[in-house]
């Protein structure tokens, strides 16, 4: 009603790679968040990738499955420090906070480069360990081995 509105007649959809990730585990929440910020800052400089969560950081990463029939995913409780002792934890000793950085990219090399940059930027004082989320290798076509990425 107010005048011209211009839009392309067609946009192209491309195939990409979604769900690359690293999980940063630190001694304190602040150290984990600092590490996450360093990782996101390093990743956002790279072409062909995005970190889709707000600020690039997932503070409540998810796992496949839940206790409810209709809910296919739920919080990755193994990385929740406050649930230690109530569920089987995956947090290493000394880690009391974890953040996940999820990475989507235009292709496999772009996601690999972003994961590598994120790991290298995040590693440092207070960061006990860096791991990644997977489903046993049976669901996703792309596997990014952390030690190959930093080797």
């Amino acid at each position, binding site marked *: 009603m107010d005048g011209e509105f211009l839009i392309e007649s067609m*946009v192209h959809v491309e195939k990409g790679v979604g769900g690359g990730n690293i999980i940063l585990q630190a001694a304190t929440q602040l150290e984990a968040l600092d590490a996450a910020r360093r990782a996101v800052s390093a990743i956002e400089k790279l072409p062909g990738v995005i970190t889709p969560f707000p600020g690039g950081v997932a503070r409540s990463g998810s796992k496949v499955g839940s206790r409810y029939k209709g809910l296919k995913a739920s919080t990755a409780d193994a990385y929740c420090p406050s649930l230690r002792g109530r569920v089987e934890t995956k947090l290493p000793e000394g880690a009391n906070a974890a953040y996940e950085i999820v990475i989507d990219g235009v292709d496999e090399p772009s996601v690999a480069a972003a994961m590598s940059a994120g*790991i290298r930027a995040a590693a440092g004082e207070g960061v006990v360990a860096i791991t990644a989320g997977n*489903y046993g290798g049976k669901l*996703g076509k792309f596997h990014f*081995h952390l030690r190959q990425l930093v080797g």
Partner: protein
Amino acid sequence: MMAIRATADPEYRGAVYVEINGTRIEDTFAEAFRMRYVRLVVTAHDEHWLDAAFTTASLPVKSGSRWAKPSAISATVFKRANSSAGGDFGEFQ
């Protein structure tokens, strides 16, 4: 300076312990999936309407038989550096 160290892992016989700057890199992998994406460039009269467009784009949209949500807005945004010059765009962020 980055220090990458690989030694025998005391917890896992025969495995290699890798650490960067004192941070242990676990011997595991991230599992990722095929996805489809589209890149859109949005232009607007000013930042207010650009923000409005971004907010709208963040709402769930119907994709085939499923609801999909744009995962991120991650683009270099430009604004007219000198509006009177016309066509002279400078980097906004």
